[in-house]
């Protein structure tokens, strides 16, 4: 393959990005070398198995991917801001909405949430780490390898262009012969394996590693939602694995699972995709529900209203999420009976979700509501998500959906669900748990700018889309004529997206500002919170808890705090057993990335040769007999003294 075919050429926008990416890479390498930070990076981050550091790396990747996906969104908004706009051509627009969707769901929402789960859950259950720390590192690096491979498509070979849903037959080799959709099949597969491992890891962690006395019905609600999410991951991701494997076989080896010819069935893809894809929506939304519950209870200064019904609601939503996938293709010509049944199961999701909304409202009632940054995001979520929810019920009604399906109304709906349900939650969680990660708070004032710009921009961006949808505009159209009358709506929407982008910029500035100037030493419990993660220092020490806490009730930390029973006896400090760092997860993942790259370009000999690297990594891992080390009691004692003062 010649070089000009390998690199995407000819488009000034892409050329500019290629240069920018090249320069950034060179700059980063130069900077790290200049600061002599390579060894530090390798020892402290690349080989770490510490759940908190892995969580932070997930979050950083998520923020970067949010930037990339956001720029995609802005480009789309620019192109549709006026009728007959000639900013992007059809092909470029198609690639951009495809990568926007994939990146936002799989490479932004997932790592953000998994990152926060990683940081918080072991702390919330009083554990030293997750059950399988090395597997956790492998999860992260596989995700990262997948994400990087996917992003490479933008400049090398061409991006996928069949939509994030990648429907066959369009995504088949006959209709999209380039390498773009190979990237989709391979990169998602690599990242997906990582996610599946995360799911397994958290199921085991939460089942087996809870602190003594932390019974199921005493679990913080965020841990509950993480647990349920992990179960859905374990149930749903294998379906994606199989679907992507078929897709790869079709595209790389000429099989006919999903093709039009030779008895293939494109509709099989739709079923498999949504059998994973619908639960996936709940995989990203349920942890968010948990985060909001924690934050709302903290800043209302009350316990969560109806804890038990909240738990049952999460479990109910998870169960129903598996039974609704057909609502993504009511218009496929299913029988009326099938469409009726799936309408019913879909609408039933509104019942537990409604229970949650009212429980949140009644948690707030008679509380003492403090409008901190995490709380503002959690509050804004309620009305915005309600709009997403009720339009979801409208879409669930199959007959009505014949008029909404694939229109901008649908696009508006799922942005009203996913942005309040995921992005607001992630912002809320980042503000809330930031001190636990870094030992200082993000600035409240800049945070307010971030909040108002983003929330106002969000509503102005997506509200008009409901109306153009009802006016007959289908999704994914790169252009439209003036006579449609959609120009005004979409122009308004484009301005909204700029406001949202300004909000995101304020967020980035806030991180920068706070790293430089924010007040340190905020204490272990800066928000006066209720759950166990606040019982230890901020930032949390490497070993999490000097002594594994014992739990007597729901919100145990809150009651012990009030009773003044949080002291640590010197005699309780023992040497702590911790897992050692490992080079194999990053090594195996890089190898996966290399093999994946060769597979994308169908260079099979190179792929086979480089897959030896994966095997080497696995063998090295198998013969790794290192079973950790002990932190001496004196070291723990010293670290605890630093923030507690004198020990008892």
């Amino acid at each position, binding site marked *: 393959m010649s070089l000009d075919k390998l690199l995407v050429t000819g488009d000034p926008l892409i050329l500019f990005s290629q240069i920018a990416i090249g320069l950034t890479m060179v700059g980063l390498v130069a900077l790290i070398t200049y600061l002599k930070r390579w060894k530090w990076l390798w020892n402290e981050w690349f080989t770490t198995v510490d759940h908190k550091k892995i969580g932070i790396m997930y979050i950083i990747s998520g923020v970067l991917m949010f930037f990339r996906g956001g720029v995609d969104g802005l480009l789309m908004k620019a192109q549709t801001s006026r009728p007959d706009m000639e900013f992007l051509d059809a092909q470029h627009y198609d690639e951009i909405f495809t990568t926007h969707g994939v990146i936002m769901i799989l490479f932004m929402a997932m790592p953000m949430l998994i990152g926060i789960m990683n940081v918080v859950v072991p702390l919330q259950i009083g554990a030293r780490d997750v059950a399988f720390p090395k597997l956790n590192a492998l999860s992260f690096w596989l995700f990262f390898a997948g994400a990087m491979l996917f992003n490479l498509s933008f400049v090398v070979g061409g991006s996928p262009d069949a939509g994030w849903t990648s429907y066959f*037959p369009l995504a088949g080799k006959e209709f*999209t012969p380039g390498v773009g959709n190979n990237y989709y099949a391979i990169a998602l597969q690599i990242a997906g394996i990582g996610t599946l491992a995360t799911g397994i890891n958290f199921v085991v962690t939460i089942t087996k590693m809870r602190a003594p006395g932390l019974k199921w019905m005493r679990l913080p609600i965020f841990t509950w939602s993480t647990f349920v999410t992990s179960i859905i991951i374990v149930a749903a991701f294998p379906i994606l694995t199989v679907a992507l494997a078929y897709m790869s076989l079709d595209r790389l080896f000429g099989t006919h699972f999903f093709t039009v010819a030779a008895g293939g069935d494109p509709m099989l893809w739709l079923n498999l995709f949504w059998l994973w894809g619908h639960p996936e929506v709940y995989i990203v939304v349920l942890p968010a529900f948990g985060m909001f519950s924690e934050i709302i209870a903290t800043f209302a200064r009350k*316990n969560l209203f109806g804890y038990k*019904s909240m738990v049952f609601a999460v479990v109910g939503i998870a169960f129903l999420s598996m039974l609704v996938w057909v609502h993504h293709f009511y218009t496929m010509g299913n029988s009326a009976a099938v469409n009726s049944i799936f309408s019913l199961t879909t609408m039933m999701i509104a019942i537990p979700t409604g229970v949650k909304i009212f429980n949140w409202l009644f948690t707030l009632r008679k509380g003492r509501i403090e409008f901190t940054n995490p709380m503002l995001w959690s509050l804004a979520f309620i009305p915005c998500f309600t709009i997403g929810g009720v339009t979801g019920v409208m879409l669930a009604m199959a*007959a009505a959906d014949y008029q909404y399906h694939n229109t901008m109304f649908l696009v508006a709906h799922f942005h009203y669900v996913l942005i309040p349900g995921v992005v607001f939650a992630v912002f809320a969680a980042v503000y809330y748990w930031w001190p636990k990660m870094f030992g200082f708070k993000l600035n409240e004032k800049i945070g307010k700018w971030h909040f108002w710009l983003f929330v106002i921009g969000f509503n102005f961006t997506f509200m008009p889309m409901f109306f153009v949808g009802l*006016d007959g505009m289908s999704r994914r159209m790169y252009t439209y004529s003036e006579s449609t009358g959609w120009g005004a709506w979409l122009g308004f929407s484009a301005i909204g997206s700029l406001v949202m982008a300004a909000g995101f910029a304020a967020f980035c500035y806030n991180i920068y500002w706070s790293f430089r100037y924010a007040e340190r030493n905020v204490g272990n419990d800066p928000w006066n919170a209720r759950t166990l993660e606040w019982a230890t220092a901020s930032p949390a020490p490497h070993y999490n808890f000097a002594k594994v806490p014992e739990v007597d009730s729901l919100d145990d930390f809150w009651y012990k705090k009030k009773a003044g029973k949080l002291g640590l006896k010197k005699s309780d400090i023992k040497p702590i057993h911790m897992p050692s760092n490992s080079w194999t997860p990053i090594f195996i993942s890089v190898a996966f990335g290399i093999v994946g790259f060769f597979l994308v370009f169908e260079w099979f000999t190179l792929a086979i040769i480089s897959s030896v690297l994966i095997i080497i990594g696995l063998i090295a891992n198998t013969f790794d007999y290192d079973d950790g080390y002990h932190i001496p009691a004196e070291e723990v004692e010293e670290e605890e003294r630093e923030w507690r003062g004198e020990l008892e």
Partner: protein
Amino acid sequence: MKAMKKLTYIFTLLLIPVLLAGCDSKLIVFDPKGPVARNLSDLIVYSIIFMAIIVLIVFVLFGFIIWKYRARKDDGDFEPEEEEGNHLLEVIWFVIPIAIVIALMIPTAKTIYEVEDIPQGYEEEEPIVIHVTSADWKWIFSYPEQGIETVNYLNIPADHPVQFKMTSAGTMQSFWVPELGGQKYTMANMQTNLFLVADQEGSFYGRNTSFNGRGYAHMDFEVQAMSNDDFNEWVQDVKNTANDLTEDEYSELLKPTVIGRKTYNGTHLEWIDHAHGGSEQYIDSDLYEIHHGEEDSSGEQEQAEDTEQETNDNAEQESEQSTDSSTHEDHSHH
């Protein structure tokens, strides 16, 4: 608190377009021109009433609660009381949504069944059958009873049921004429069915809503509902003046292009029905190769305009009598 006032203000502001939309009946989904679409828009309006009530309740409760229970400087040491929950309240907001779901489900199911059949009031009439074949990136309409075929426009008799037998020559598309009824997918090797009636004469906007590649945005068509006499006259006219559809011409037609309108004598159903396989012989993946940065989309446009010229020349007969709008691209549904 200032933040609260801002919040209330913004949500009121957001409701303005919603209220305006209520008065503006021109949104295409709320402007039905046939019994099927009317049935659907009635259902949609019915559901919107429920949803509006729910949104109102949540917003009012939300606004009231966060206003009333906000932290104040003079709160002192006030600490809210812990609340376990309240069984009665929780049962209430469990049961009410169930009632709403039931209230929505019954008319939904009824409508789902209704739109699968010939619309009420038209059961006695024998529907005219039109085969829809979607291709990249055009719509092909075959009238087997009349022995004619059109591309990118569809003439139907008004006030008469039409049965669409739909399939695709390759990628999946979705056939949608929002003023007449809901959409349905078109898929190769399969046939989907749709009944529509236009109960008045007029021109309606139709398009593909399922993304299928570069030409997707241009994949729309015009539906012209006309009186029975006009329809018959048009058919006769086509039979007298239009060229025969040959197999070569048809293969050419199935190449991935954006083209204007075309009219033919005869239908392709004589040699292939894509609902029963055989599409692969028309698919040439070389034609789908992409070349970044080359002016491919504008090239397409030019080609489209050229063909349109041609089509307009050879199909002058249509403009003569019924079709007042000339191309599908400047068609507006407003």
